[in-house]
């Protein structure tokens, strides 16, 4: 028994040291700006530093692709950045904003809200991307959210050996990924800077747009994070405006009834022709033409604020 236990203790000790060592390496490596994969939108956002922005757009892919950022800048005379990213719900938005503000400043924040982002668990694309934030575990705001949202990161192993989280999400932090990141060529992978974080939408119109009905009730978890974003904005002295991006044939009555609880600075595309399929590439996303039209329309609306 003694021999067996000694071997078990030695093996466990070595395993502990290995996890600690590799995890500490990941803590260091994956936070390095030069090793961020800026071809991925959230990583591109996290790579930004020293920016002083008149405005920022935050939200899911519907915010990401809603604006021609260069056009909006020229119309408003402001200097803006688009922080929207595919599949982001409010948990992602909150942490992206929180980390972005550590080394950047924003004056106005346009936050995109819809019933999909208020139902991240049932929405097929807005689930929380915890792995993006794992390297920022030492940041209390990040750690609290991760522990709240991922129960397995809230157990005693995580408190004794928090580095093990990289093995839990090993798909994103393997040695193969380290090698890939080292070999990234920044000039090739930066596809967002020219569009100020936005994107040039495809010049494509669907012949038949499939429509889906979004949930009719808000999820309280997502609602909580919407409030957290509001508090964060207040804390940082940011002027927060909530807006809804156009959605083909969508009824936004529920949003209109609940969002005033958060803020009275609201923008709804009431006079944007949401029944015109020429503006859309699918139900939730504008095409190249729709993006231009909505950007100009949005410019008119923000004048009234």
């Amino acid at each position: 028994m003694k021999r067996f236990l000694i071997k078990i203790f030695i093996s466990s000790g070595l395993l502990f040291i290995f996890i600690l060592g590799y995890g500490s390496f990941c803590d260091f490596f994956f936070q390095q700006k030069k090793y961020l994969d800026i071809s991925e939108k959230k990583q591109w956002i996290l790579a930004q530093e020293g920016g002083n922005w008149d405005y920022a757009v935050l939200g899911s892919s519907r915010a990401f692709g809603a604006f021609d950022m260069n056009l909006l800048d020229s119309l408003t005379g402001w200097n803006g950045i688009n922080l929207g990213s595919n599949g982001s719900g409010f948990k992602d938005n909150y942490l992206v904003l929180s980390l972005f503000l550590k080394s950047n400043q924003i004056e106005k924040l346009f936050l995109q809200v819809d019933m999909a982002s208020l139902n991240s668990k049932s929405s097929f694309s807005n689930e929380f991307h915890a792995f993006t934030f794992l390297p920022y575990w030492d940041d209390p705001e990040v750690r609290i959210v991760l522990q709240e949202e991922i129960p397995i990161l809230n157990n005693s192993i995580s408190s004794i050996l928090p580095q093990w989280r990289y093995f839990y999400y090993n798909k994103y932090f393997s040695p193969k990924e380290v090698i890939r990141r080292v070999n990234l060529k920044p000039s090739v992978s930066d596809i967002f800077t020219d569009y100020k974080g936005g994107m040039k939408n495809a010049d494509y119109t669907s012949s038949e747009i499939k429509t889906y009905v979004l949930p009719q009730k808000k999820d309280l978890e997502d609602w909580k994070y919407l409030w957290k974003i509001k508090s964060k904005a207040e804390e940082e002295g940011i002027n927060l405006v909530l807006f809804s991006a156009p959605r083909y044939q969508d009824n936004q009555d529920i949003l209109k009834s609940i969002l005033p609880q958060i803020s009275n600075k609201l923008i709804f595309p009431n006079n944007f022709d949401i029944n015109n399929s020429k503006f859309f590439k699918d139900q939730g996303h504008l095409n190249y033409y729709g993006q231009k039209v909505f950007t100009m329309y949005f410019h008119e609306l923000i004048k009234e604020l």
Partner: protein
Amino acid sequence: MLFNSFEFLIFLPLVFIGYWFVFKKNLKLQNAFILLASYVFYGWWDWRFLALIIASSALDYWCGLRLSGPNISKDRQVASNDTSIVDYRSSILKPFQGKNLYLTLSIAFNLGLLGFFKYFNFFIESATDFIQLLGFQAHASTLNLILPVGISFYTFQTMSYTIDVYRGKMEATKDPIAFFSFVAFFPQLVAGPIERASNLLPQFLKRREFEYQQGSDGMKLILWGLFKKMVIADNCSLVVNPIFENYQTASGLELIMGAILFSFQIYGDFSGYSDIAIGTAKLFGFDLMTNFRTPYFSRDIAEFWRRWHISLSTWFRDYVYIPLGGSRVTKTKAIRNIFIVFLVSGFWHGANWTFIIWGGIHAAMFIPISLIGKNRAHLHEGDHVIPSGKELFQMAYTFILVCVAWVFFRADTVGEAWGYFNGLFNNSYTDGFRFSTFVLSITLVIILLSLEWIMKGDQVLKFKNPFLRYSSYLGIVGLILFYGVFFNPQDFIYFQF
């Protein structure tokens, strides 16, 4: 509680310490502790179903005592009476007379549990479908039943006890704690191996000493099992599940890859569980029976069934096939017996026609080999380092047959399985196929097969060369850490049976 869960990581060392350091000196207390730990392990999933295990254990314990009691002579008296009236009466009453009563009670209770929780809705729905097929109107009224985890395993295990006592193969135990522990022994409670009372129960009745070699072998099996489950099975599932969910639109090559990788998913999943179970039992001084012996190296279907889920296939052999007459009957009856065993075996897996067809396919593949007397042609493993061309062909051929049957096993309905095969022949072969999707799973499967081939005939990870041995430990740990699926792990497939 899952073997690959955080809870089990805490549970196992605690039980190990209590077992060897607190209760070691008193066998009864040690058994009681194992029993308590087993109930905690099972109750972690749903404590309400503990009542079923306790009821099944209590009844079979009592039946066992009665079966070995004085009724035996009375039964023999009835059986030996040769007048026609008594013959008639005894044939009707035989299951309810003497020791037969207790055997009948045990089997009826255990199969009743299974029938109610596992098959009730299936029978109701099938009967309704049949009535509707005849042109009558019928509406099914099913119950919203939860299938208690492990019920198919522990009911079979406990039935083996009463049958063996009835047959006089073993004495009934008078130690209730040992018996209850035998039924609920946590390493193999929820997904086997389905132990025979004659192998496991005596181990509860004798004092156990910790042996270094046994403990070390146990740890190696646990490591190997975790590799098979977390690295092989769960990675394969990430590729296989989307293919089976979208079989209508998947390309022919994707469907082929889906069937092949599912074969490794289910193997990694189930044999991985068995390895962890056997390894865990070894840590407590118990030897469980081998459940898998590199089945995909089989050279024919008969050999496959000597290597796949051995504890179940031998259970059916001993308690169904041989009592039916086995192969020592006319050819027609032998064919019938094989069909019965495979169909029942398929049905054991689940209340779905897909499993019955899966069993039927295996029967259809087994019968020709049996009829030409070649079913025992490959009793011994080849000892070549490199397999011959003939062996490779036989293995590949057997594997393809097994893959075909697995499609039925994996599909949710018979229609879905047909649709899968239909897609194989009618969908485009290459549209949408990306080899990169499969690279990781294929690489891991090649590693698995290579290691299994090297370890063939030897015990798991027991290389004589220390360098090779420690390299294999490090390699396996590295693969688990970097390629194991920790995030959103899949439940063990056999939990649903």
